[in-house]
């Protein structure tokens, strides 16, 4: 067995027991045990202290609370950036961030995209990194989990008008799940050598220079941010080059740990879901299906990268082709977007893999919370078509799928596709693409397409060579990231509200089981078909033409 398959196997063998444990945490956050220990009282106390109520909400109230919280988040991150010069914890004395960049960064972090048009270590203060960015890493992930919780309630409740309380979901998912996990991961990262400090950037002896010259080494509260950036599928690194930086990801062990962290919560969500809908088999089937897709994607990526020669361009030698390709697939299938190598340097087909992985809508594992609620839209479309094929008005978990649910899931499935295409078209047409992007020919198109694919699916990873700092891309990108995050969220909540009101149809022999291999195969087909149909021409003009030109 070569190193690639061994690492892949090791990854999933370790992931399974960990995700079973994390599923327990997610279930705790979904419905915390009612007893009087301080652990259970804490979230309620926090919410009360903020002057908010923990009463059940109808979907529109839930959505309103979510939007206000997130808009306030955008405002806060924006303000901290444009005034960081006047704020404490800025030992390097970084100046205020320009407004369009600040807007882009705030939308990017609040929407869990973590598209980085800046380089953290050379432009953001410790306060900005921690209070603005790290806190959003938590909040955006928790928002995703909250929406998933609301949808799960919608699917499991009978004739109910409420879908939970947003503030409780938000705080509970941080308190029971994100915070303890990040704490553990951060400690482990420190152990592997990732810095965690408030001190100034130290001067160190350069290893490369022959003369006795010292260099400034950027450090800071790195481990704490990297932990949540990985766990929350945020992906916004402390350093500009993300986990390719030796201080953000120093050793193979840290690499494995960070890789596990990316997949942990999305994978555990399937198992928690199975437990909550009282069909564990469905949870495991989804888990298995997504693992299978992961292996297929990684296999394609690895083999086209190591085919003729081992393509080491743009890779950290300590990760090699194996470590980089597995990471590339993990980061693009989940909406993480953190990177440990340059995707732009991947060969055309290997580079198309993360692009296609994102274009599927970030539903194979996907983002924390968001990957799964996005997947449910695809499940509903699949159930709809297959329900027709067996001659029954389609139902999922006993809930009849009517035209309203169809509308909402169409928004969730198709809006990201539309935003990516529109973004690529506008960004390319008005951005003087031929003059600004690094490469000519189809590879240049790939760089453009990758950037908007990443923003339009809230991923955040980037193909190098794209002029991310241009005003047009900053502003357009902000709108796209915002739209592709929050419109599907509102649609999902509306769907949750509508499902909650419905009766539950009892199961019968005529009911289409959704926990079988047939259904999973169909689900995968629907996901791929929709992705392929939306992006085939664009992929043809980018990676495919690139591949055909090179070979």
């Amino acid at each position, binding site marked *: 067995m070569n190193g690639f398959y061994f690492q892949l196997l090791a990854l999933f063998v370790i992931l399974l027991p960990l995700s079973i444990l994390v599923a327990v945490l997610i279930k705790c956050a979904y419905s915390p045990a009612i007893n009087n220990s301080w652990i259970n009282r804490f979230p309620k106390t926090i919410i009360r202290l903020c002057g908010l109520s923990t009463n059940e909400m109808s979907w529109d109230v839930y959505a309103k609370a979510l939007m206000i919280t997130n808009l306030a988040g955008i405002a806060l991150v924006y303000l901290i950036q444009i005034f960081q010069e006047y704020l404490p914890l800025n030992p390097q004395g970084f100046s205020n961030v320009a407004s369009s960049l600040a807007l882009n960064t705030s939308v990017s972090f609040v929407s869990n995209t973590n598209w980085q048009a800046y380089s953290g270590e050379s432009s953001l203060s410790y306060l900005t990194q921690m209070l603005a960015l790290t806190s959003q890493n938590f909040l955006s992930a928790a928002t995703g989990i909250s929406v998933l919780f609301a949808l799960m309630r919608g699917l499991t409740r009978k004739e109910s008008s409420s879908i939970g309380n947003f503030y409780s979901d938000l705080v509970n998912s941080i308190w029971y799940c994100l915070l303890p996990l990040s704490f553990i991961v951060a400690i482990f990262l420190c152990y592997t050598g990732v810095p965690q400090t408030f001190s100034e950037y130290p001067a160190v002896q350069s290893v490369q220079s022959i003369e006795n010259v010292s260099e400034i080494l950027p450090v800071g509260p790195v481990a704490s941010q990297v932990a949540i950036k990985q766990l929350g599928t945020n992906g916004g690194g402390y350093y500009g080059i993300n986990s390719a930086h030796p201080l953000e990801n120093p050793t193979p062990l840290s690499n494995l740990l960070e890789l596990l962290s990316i997949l942990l919560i999305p994978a555990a969500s399937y198992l928690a879901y199975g437990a909550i809908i009282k069909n564990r088999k469905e949870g495991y089937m989804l888990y298995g299906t997504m693992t299978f897709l992961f292996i297929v994607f990684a296999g394609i990526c690895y083999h086209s990268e190591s085919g003729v020669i081992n393509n080491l361009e743009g890779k950290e030698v300590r990760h090699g082709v194996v470590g980089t390709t597995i990471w590339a697939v993990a980061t693009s299938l989940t909406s993480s977007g953190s990177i440990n190598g340059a995707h732009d340097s991947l060969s055309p087909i290997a580079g198309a893999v993360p692009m296609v992985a994102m274009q599927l809508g970030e539903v194979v594992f996907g983002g924390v919370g968001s990957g799964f609620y996005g997947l449910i839209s695809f499940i509903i479309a699949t159930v709809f078509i297959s329900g027709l094929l067996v001659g029954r*008005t389609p139902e999922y978990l006993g809930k009849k799928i009517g035209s309203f649910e169809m509308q909402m899931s169409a928004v969730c499935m*198709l809006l990201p596709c539309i935003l990516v295409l529109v973004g690529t*078209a506008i960004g390319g047409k008005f951005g003087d693409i*031929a003059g600004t992007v690094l490469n000519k020919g*189809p590879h240049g*198109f790939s760089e453009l397409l990758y950037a908007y694919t990443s923003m339009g699916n809230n991923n955040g990873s980037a193909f190098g060579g794209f002029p991310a700092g241009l005003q047009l891309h900053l502003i357009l990108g902000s709108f796209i990231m915002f739209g592709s995050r929050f419109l599907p969220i509102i649609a999902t909540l509306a769907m949750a509200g509508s499902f909650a009101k419905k009766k539950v*149809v009892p199961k019968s022999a005529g009911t289409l089981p959704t926990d079988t291999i047939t259904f999973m195969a169909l689900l995968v087909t629907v996901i791929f078909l929709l992705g392929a149909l939306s992006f085939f021409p*664009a992929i043809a003009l980018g990676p495919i*033409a690139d591949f055909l030109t090179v070979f």
Partner: protein
Amino acid sequence: MNNEAIIDSFVRLNPKTQLKNPVMFVVYAGAIACSVISIFAFSNNDVSEGSFSFFIAFWLWATVLFANFATAIAESKGRAQANSLKRTRNQLKAKRYIGNSDTLEEVSASDIDLDDKFLVIAGEVIPADGEVISGMAFVDESAITGESAPVIRESGGDRSSVTAGTMVLSDSIIVKASCKSGEGFIDKMIKLVEGAKRQKTPNEIALTILLSAITLVFLVVCAALVPFSEISIALSGQGKVITPTIVIALLICLAPTTIGGLVSAIGVAGMNRLLKKNVIALSGRAVEAAGDVDVLLLDKTGTITLGNRYAVEFYPEQGYARNVLVEASYISSLSDDTPEGKSIIDLALSQHITLPPKDELIKNGVSVAFSAQTRVSGFTMDSREIRKGAKDRIYKMAKEAGYSWSQEFEKIVDAISARGGTPLLVSENSKILGVIELKDIVKTGIRDRFASLRKMGIKTVMVTGDNPLTAAAIAAEAGVDDFIAEATPENKMDLIKKYQNEGRLVAMTGDGTNDAPALAQADVAVAMNSGTQAAKEAGNMIDLDSNPTKLLEVVETGKQLLITRGALTTFSLANDIAKYFAIVPAAFASTYPVLVALDIMYLSSPKSAILSAVIFNAVIIPALIPLALRGVKYSADGAEVLLRRNILTYGVGGLILPFVGIKAIDMLISLFGGLS
């Protein structure tokens, strides 16, 4: 009929009609755009672009017309059926009184107007709904009640109303019509069938939303191709920008036009298929709901058991030999032509007793027919007056003649009633000889039918007026999942509500006025045409044959309707893959000639590739019209099996077929000189 449909396809080009179907409206708009482009190109002397756009425009118009034709032909079939319905109605004759005189004239049933009086004599079918104003008759409403025993209809009181389509068996009655000519129930139904008022069903709306959303994405995909093409040219420094005609062609090929064009035809055809089975669906929604039904409430009599009862045993009164009873029963039924009478003869003959030959007896005696007054029938010869009848009548007769009967005998009679049988008492010269037990017979094959329903996930519930014990026995014999005994309109209604609260969809059949509330409550309510007006108004389907077993076929038709929609949607989307492989390399051939590697069909030229895809997209619609009208075959299998089979046929088939089809069309185009 086809000519009519062809004309109708052109009439439907009206933009208002087209707007109702978003997918086809996109094709319609594309056809207009390509026509305009073609005209402009020709006027600019760009013959190559002009003729290419002309061909594309031509086939886009063809696509629209084909889709129109599909709907038109489905609706014209409905009309044809309505016409035949009218014909049968018109063929029914009536004997109408002229004015207030006693003179009769023979008119068509459809001419009977409100307050017209007409005469119906034994053996005739009642031509219109009305009230009996004179006379008394036995009317066979067996199709309604399932009971072979005819019911009395007489003037005045509760039993004066008669329904069209039922048959007078004895005597004659004069009836006053209770509805206007052309406003009878059938007339209303004919209007419905003619399709004027068809509304989209919930599932059809959900599907249309999905299809529209997909079309919208393709609209964006295709619109983005123009800037994508420009960006690529800027990046690679070569090629021509993709033309609007190609963008439109790609859009139409990708849009789910196959299902979009056939979706309304499928809906209409579903109602038509029911009509062929003589069931009129008052709304498409009901047909669709039928596919979803989880629980069937079935009347025992007529549906589960043969409506007629059969003789199964003779029980003599104390002091009489069994042979005496058998012989008397045999004689009493000699000229009784009802199934019950025949079954008595058969049973008697099977008892290995020497019985007098039939012909001789008939020569020597007189048969006494069943009449409304006496409610007994029998045979009189010499001094023997042999009678058989219901227990109260025979008891009364015996009592009046001064005879008594044993307590044991009374017990036997009551026991027969108690186990759901019908006791038929036999007497000679008013002296009670014994009793014949008549019993319900479960229909052959009904067990298998219920088993296959169970496989489809449908629960069957038997509804009967019998006592729980009898009901349980018959339920077990028939293999139903559940039963409700001593059914009253109230507990029927409660049962439906109970199932509905569990989230199930309930279907039932009904006929009587007392069924009306339950019918109104049920999700699928099939009213018997022979039933009362109230029942028919409460139901959402009418069964013209008044056959309660129809419910099963209604369910199958509903399922077929949904499956046909699903199959064509899957097919339509699967087709897109091949179309991409045909059009994308052709569209960007000038910018990236290397993309020709994607042309795995080796099509002769870029233009021919695009046109072939468009032609395939157009001709697949008429090719699938028969399937849309006929419906995809349905078999009672579990969901999983059905899903796998349909995906293989329509998904995988839909993936492969266009590769073959587009290649074949491309070769044909080359034969005719090709396009370059």
